[in-house]
């Protein structure tokens, strides 16, 4: 009976086993298509997906850039509002008591229900994607920051105050570093949620960007191109998360 306790494998062995498993899966997939076990109309072979990736590359690069731009705008808004309001709500008790249930309820609410209304209000351009992406990113960031701030040892603040720190200094030098792990968790989660929101708007509204490309390829039954586009968006997302994680490690050292 295993699965318990510290790791039993070295990092290199683990990496090798992971790469081997993924490689094996791709090889099996290719073989399954070549041997005619699956219909290439629905499941194209990895080699066909690679060719499609080259074919849609130039068009997809532009759309990927558009999606990325909207996501970054939504992310900047989510982080700014989420961290800022999170610090304020987390430190002011009365505000927290009144607002927290609303924040939790809005976070838990399926945002998709508001999507038609957002499109109605903001039209079909960049704005609804940014608004909807922000709606997705803001709540997890804000809630995590609020939680992080409330978990900060209140003695730290008392000590800082008694040593003559200004309100600004308390926020910047004590609260933010102490709540940093929660803030960083929020930054990571917020990125994925913002991208999710932007993609949903692009799919639903048929507005340009990768979400639109994905649904257009699905509707046109171009499975190879669809898989290639899916892979591109996935890589973008994983890349963004990895980037944030390396930033994470650096900020943790600053702390």
């Amino acid at each position, binding site marked *: *009976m*295993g*699965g*318990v*306790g510290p*790791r*039993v*494998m070295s990092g290199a062995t*683990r990496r090798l*086993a*992971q790469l081997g*498993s*993924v490689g094996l899966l791709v090889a099996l997939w290719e073989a399954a298509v070549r041997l005619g076990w699956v219909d290439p109309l*629905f499941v194209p072979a990895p080699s066909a997906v690679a060719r499609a990736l080259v074919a849609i590359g130039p068009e997809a690069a532009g759309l990927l850039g558009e999606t990325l731009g909207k996501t970054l705008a939504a992310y900047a808004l989510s982080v700014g509002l989420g961290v800022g309001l999170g610090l304020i709500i987390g430190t002011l008790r*009365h505000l927290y*008591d*009144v607002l927290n*249930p*609303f924040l939790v309820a809005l976070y*838990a*609410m*399926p945002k*998709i*229900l*508001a*999507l*038609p*209304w957002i499109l*109605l*209000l903001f039209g079909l351009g960049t704005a609804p994607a940014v608004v909807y992406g922000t709606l997705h990113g803001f709540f997890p960031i804000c809630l995590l920051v609020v939680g992080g701030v409330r978990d900060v040892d209140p003695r730290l603040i008392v000590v800082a105050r008694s040593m003559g720190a200004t309100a600004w200094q308390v926020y910047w030098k004590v609260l933010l570093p102490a709540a940093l792990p929660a803030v960083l968790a929020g930054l990571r989660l917020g990125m*994925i*949620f913002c*991208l*999710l929101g932007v*993609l*949903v708007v692009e*799919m*639903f509204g048929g507005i340009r960007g990768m*979400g639109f490309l*994905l*649904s257009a*390829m*699905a509707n046109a*039954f171009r*499975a190879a191109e*669809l*898989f290639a586009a*899916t892979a591109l*968006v*996935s890589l973008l*997302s*994983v890349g963004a*998360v990895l980037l944030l994680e390396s930033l994470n490690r650096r900020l943790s050292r600053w702390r």
Partner: protein
Amino acid sequence: MRVLGTRVGLLLLVLGAWELWAGRQDPLLYIPPSKVLPALVRVLRLEAYPTLPEHLWLTLVEVLVAYALAVGVGLGLGFLLGLPRHVGEIYEPILAGLYAIPSVVWYPSLMLFFGLGPASKIAFGFLLGFFPVVLAVLTGIRSVDRQLLTVARALGAGRGTCFVKVILPAMTGTLLAGLRAGLALTVVGVIVGEILGARAGLGYLINYAYGFLRTAEYAALAMVALTLVMAIDGVAALAEGRARRWAG
């Protein structure tokens, strides 16, 4: 009590401001609460959409099937990968990495495989619900105290006894949290799927009302959907509480 009063006051203030604002602008676009209420009555009395119960029922069935699949496959795969220790170490990062990809990316492919009908919604709900369950099993197994296992084995417990008496009770908390998160995400997945493209179901109805610019009815239907979501989560909370008490 004062806090509760402030909360209610704030809510009324927001609704009032919204009503005033919407009255001055286009009420079709800004959907004031005074328009939503009559629409909600029409929807609930089945005057606006006589087939509402059928759509509601379909959505509920999709959720239940998708969740059953997510729990079955999630638990099965979780224990299969988690119990042999090195297998879990290899595949948990891969699963966690896949979880970092925004789920909606997979939806067009599911539409391609399963078409516009309920199957693609079930598949998407399953996909969203599956990850929290399988990851909860993997982290739960990893969090079991090894010494407990050593002691149990020294006392002569076999594999099955170790599993039922030591591993399962020790991971109950993580597992229940994962199962509940999985249900919430399954519901979201089914509704997202229905809104992005369907021929029936609550999400379809919402999209239909929006498409014909019946915005008050759209808002009323969205409230019905929200109630369904909250009802399902309420049942899940009750079940979780009961299971926690049972597990001690």
